[in-house]
């Protein structure tokens, strides 16, 4: 079974989801639940940190597409940080850098919300 887990921490008005392991069609519902939970709690400023993510397939990428509009309508955003080159390349192939702000570190992404 694919090894994947997430943890959520709060930094003021920003919620940070840390991803760890392998994000595929089997594990994507875990991340979906995280987004649903944050949206239900009116937490719309979200940073997703990828530094411990080893792998992503399109099922994982689809999770970001599924919730971004609702979050932006609520004056929030999903910002991404800490991707390895391998994971970034997949995002890049699909044109995601045009739709999402991607930062080197979690701190930079959080600061962007506070500015």
């Amino acid at each position, binding site marked *: 079974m*694919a090894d994947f887990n997430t943890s959520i921490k709060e930094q003021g008005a920003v919620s940070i989801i840390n991803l760890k392991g392998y994000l*595929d069609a*089997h594990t994507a519902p875990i991340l979906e639940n995280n987004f649903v939970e944050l949206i239900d709690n009116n937490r719309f400023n979200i940073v997703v940190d990828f530094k411990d993510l080893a792998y992503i*397939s*399109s*099922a994982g990428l689809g999770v970001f*597409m599924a919730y971004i509009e609702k979050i932006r309508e609520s004056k929030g955003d999903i910002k991404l940080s800490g991707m390895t080159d391998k994971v970034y390349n997949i995002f890049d*192939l*699909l*044109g995601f850098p045009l739709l999402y702000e991607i930062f080197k570190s979690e701190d930079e992404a959080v600061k962007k919300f506070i500015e």
Partner: protein
Amino acid sequence: MKTKKLSVKSRTENLSSIRDFVSSSAVEAGVPPDVVENIILAVDEACTNIIKHAYKSYPDGEMIIKTKSTNTKFTISITDYGNSFQADAVPEPDLQKYYRQKRVGGLGMYLMKTLMDDVKYVSIPGKRNEVLLSKNLKITHTNAR
């Protein structure tokens, strides 16, 4: 020529063992590490499509994954016995349009075509479907004798 075979049920929980199987077959065939990563993702996408579309998430369908390697090519064939698939009917994704429509389908197919050198579908409706993914290898093997 070397061939290897893995049979699994059509469940997403099997994606990780499929990736491990493809990874070890490709590494053994001398495929460079960065290319191995691309092949793993393409096969994951193909199998995810089979689970979701050919078997419509029915968990007990058969999926047979075979790898074949020669000095110049690494090929993966994936056979299923679910609904046949019209590859031509899947349009190239337009991400801006997807964003507006909250659509996410079609990304997997696009990745497969981008990451592999050749993607072919063979369907015998009511019998079986086969997707063939292949990657050309540069002939730099020292053990290619």
